[in-house]
């Protein structure tokens, strides 16, 4: 877990903004929201080849090697092909729910460059032969919803889509953005994950083959159509081409969203955020992520690079923990959030996660009851892989990575000597917690 091997990574290309190059400056007119006319001066209307479904586009996406940017990193072309081949007229669901609390990139794209997202969503719809597009955005992101609705209204007269496009405000919460939960909500049900299969690409919205795709993925898709597969592969690694948006937060002077070639060393990413002092570790991938101690910052920010320490880029999140902060206390606060964020439908989440969170709080603040660590490990094994979605798996992964990344702290806490910082207010902003983090 705590490997610190540093593999040489190829030097990062120059900052390679592909999605953020024309981001309107903060404070610009109409809330820094880009109109269709402005958008078209930077981004041409993606060429749409003839034929239906347009397998040409899918072939292009395959050659480009695009992978999903929502967290799972699944090859986009494989999903598109399955949907295009399915029975019945397909549906495209653009997933902009971004329930990961430490991620802001999808909201940034939606709020400032809604037309880039729409270009991608409409192109995806043409590629898989869809007759309907639904764009899901968390109801707690009013700027994103407003920008998207205005963008659609603009297109109605200037560039009619020819198919039904709707914006759907989804309930806030981590699990409501999970693919099957979003599909169930579009179908008029509760926004809670369903037991799978069938997966949405087989039977999704209205039992039709449904392409659920993250909004950043769709933006890349439109850029691939404009510039080609070779251009796309000009950044990133051979296995994971392209750039990725990364949301930086924690002990930084310049938190926010940056765009980096996939494979950029983690240290370079942390540096771009401007650390406020010596850095102890980073939580990589998001609340659903993995702690990487500073000794592992030489690793490449890619699925392959981070897999050496059991981590993954997830939805592109890096939270920086200063040296001297208590990783166990930070983890305990996130575990409490996990316990509260479940959909409340499966036993392992309803009972297991609160039990784990309680035990973790004890380990963080003391006194640690006898056998506490063993109970944590037993419960982690019991909830892993259970329930309708990956929610319990995410919490277990975080728990195990904390125990692996901060072994000296675990020993000190168990010995009744918790870190001085463990009683402080913490570094990571956890929604709904006592430190008053009120929405994003």
């Amino acid at each position, binding site marked *: 877990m705590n490997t610190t091997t540093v593999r040489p990574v190829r030097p990062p290309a120059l900052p390679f903004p592909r999605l953020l190059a024309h981001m309107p400056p903060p404070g610009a007119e109409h809330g820094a929201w880009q109109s269709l006319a402005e958008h078209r001066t930077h981004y041409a209307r993606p060429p749409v080849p003839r034929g239906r479904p347009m397998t040409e586009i899918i072939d292009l996406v395959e050659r480009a090697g695009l992978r999903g940017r929502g967290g799972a990193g699944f090859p986009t072309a494989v999903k598109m092909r399955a949907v295009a081949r399915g029975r019945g007229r397909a549906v495209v669901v653009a997933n902009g729910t971004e329930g990961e609390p430490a991620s802001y990139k999808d909201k940034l794209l939606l709020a400032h460059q809604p037309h880039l997202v729409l270009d991608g969503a409409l192109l995806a719809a043409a590629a898989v032969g869809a007759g309907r597009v639904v764009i899901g955005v968390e109801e707690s992101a009013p700027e994103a919803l407003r920008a998207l609705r205005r963008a659609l209204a603009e297109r109605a007269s200037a560039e009619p889509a020819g198919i039904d496009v709707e914006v759907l405000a989804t309930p806030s919460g981590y699990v409501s953005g999970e693919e099957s939960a979003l599909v169930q909500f579009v179908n008029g049900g509760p926004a809670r994950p369903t037991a799978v299969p069938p997966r949405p690409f087989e039977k999704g919205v209205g039992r039709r083959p449904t392409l659920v795709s993250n909004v950043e993925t769709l933006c890349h898709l439109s850029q691939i159509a404009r510039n080609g597969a070779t251009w796309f592969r000009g950044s990133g690694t051979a296995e994971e081409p392209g750039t990725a948006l990364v949301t930086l937060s924690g002990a930084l002077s310049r938190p926010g969203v940056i765009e980096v070639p996939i494979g950029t060393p983690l240290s370079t990413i942390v540096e771009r955020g401007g650390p406020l002092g010596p850095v102890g570790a980073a939580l990589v991938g998001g609340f659903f992520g993995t702690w990487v101690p500073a000794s592992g910052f030489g690793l490449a920010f890619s699925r392959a690079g981070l897999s050496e320490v059991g981590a993954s880029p997830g939805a592109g999140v890096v939270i920086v923990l200063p040296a001297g902060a208590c990783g166990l206390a930070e983890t305990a606060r996130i575990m409490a959030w996990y316990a509260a964020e479940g959909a409340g439908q*499966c*036993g*392992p989440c309803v009972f*297991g996660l609160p*039990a784990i969170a309680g035990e973790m709080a004890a380990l963080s603040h003391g006194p640690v009851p006898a056998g506490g660590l063993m109970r944590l490990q*037993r419960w982690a094994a*019991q909830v892993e892989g259970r329930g309708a979605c990956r929610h319990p798996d995410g919490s277990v992964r975080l728990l195990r990575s904390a125990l692996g990344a901060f072994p000296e702290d675990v020993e000190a806490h168990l010995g009744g000597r918790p870190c001085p910082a463990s009683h402080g207010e913490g570094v990571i902003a956890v929604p709904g917690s006592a430190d008053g983090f009120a929405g994003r």
Partner: protein
Amino acid sequence: MIACAGHGVCAELLPEWIALDDWGYPIVRREAIPPELAAQARWAVSNCPALALKLRKKRA
């Protein structure tokens, strides 16, 4: 819809394949159920008070 309410009947009827966690919810083995347990598995499914247990054909 996830209907399981932790009655635990399944673990009584099919202990070879289903155990209970610390809170009484079933932990089901992932491998395919062998033919000799198929009848017992159907019995467990039909006796689940919440109709939460299902038997599925393993895909090739």
